[in-house]
């Protein structure tokens, strides 16, 4: 009994790290905001290769916003940093948090 309690406690302590381990960071410029599908398409530029990669990321009710209040406030050309997790059943990257740099500037 004591062992299982310790295990649960350990698991609870490790959970944020496990979740964080699965998350990836995307840094780039917003190319498109689709309010209907609740997605943003961002363009990431590799600083060394200068290659452009576009990624579509889903924003859901659990997404934490920083610099703006909601998806409606995000504009094309905004610089964003998104922490996202791959949602396997829906085959999409889902935003955990989204930070808009110098929003409204």
């Amino acid at each position, binding site marked *: 009994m004591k062992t299982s309690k310790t295990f649960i406690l350990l698991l609870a302590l490790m959970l944020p790290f496990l979740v964080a381990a699965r998350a990836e960071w995307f840094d780039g410029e917003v190319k498109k905001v689709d309010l209907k599908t609740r997605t943003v398409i961002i363009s990431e530029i*590799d600083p060394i*290769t200068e290659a452009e990669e576009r990624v*579509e990321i889903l924003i859901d009710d659990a997404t934490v916003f920083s610099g703006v209040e909601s998806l409606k406030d995000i504009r094309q050309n905004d610089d964003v940093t998104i922490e996202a997790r*791959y949602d396997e059943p829906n085959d999409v990257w889902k935003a955990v948090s989204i930070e808009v740099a110098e929003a409204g500037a």
Partner: protein
Amino acid sequence: MKKGFKRSRFVLGILTTPAKGIFRSSYHLGLLAGIRPRLKAFKGQLKVIMMPSCPYQSLDQILKHHQLDGLLILTWRWIHPSIVRLIEKTRHPQVLVVNDPVPGLRVNLVSTDTDAGIRQAVSHLIKKGLRRIGMLHGPMSVAFKTGKKITRVPFIDTRLKREGFLKTLRSKKIPINQKWIRAGLANTESEGERVMQEWLRGKALPEAILCGNDDLAFGALKAIRKTGKRAPQDVAIIGFDDNKRAKKSCPPLTTVHQPLIQMGKDAVDILIRKARRPDSRPVHKRYLPKLIVRKTA
């Protein structure tokens, strides 16, 4: 070198193809990420030499002309066929080749154990119960125009991966279907997409495809997505290299990781040692790649 100037820094040359954007490939960047800090630690200097033709009779001349203490040869199947011949003939102790381990090579070599990587990838697919396995690889040879003549140089990397794939299927008693082995004209994303699009139009689609590199795999994933299919549900995809984009692709790419940074670092160390002890035997170092399981297989 000017008279009276005593050079004490180790000067390392990288001989590679003059192709545009060669150092934008994740493969080269990975190696450079190992080479540059190691060289800096020894206060060494790096020179990049790109030769569209070969005005030299030996590698020794290249080393002398560019005042090099060591010569590292990258992507050597893509450099001029005359230089390829010089490399194959030489036993110069200050020359090191990265990958493409041709039998009988008498210079220093650091290379990935391609067979082991392919074996890990195929075994992973078999463990998942998949037996209809195909391969999408790059070109089998590279064509060079030398004057009016076209010379074809075998692309060793592709051949090794293809051989490794066939060997693994045979050893695991998995049926080989030649229709499931397809080649792109280049190891690029656009070629991966083009070949995969053709594949998806036909009937003979395997359950899994092993790609010759990550870029081909990204292209294949793009084509799969465009046709409304999914990886791995409709077809599992495995790449090779584990480049920076692999973990952020949609879905994240399962791929074979090459220890490029370590290989770059070791290449510098070997050449520095050889500059001090040129009479020692050539070093051949093999690296074990590792399958990184993500979502596409």
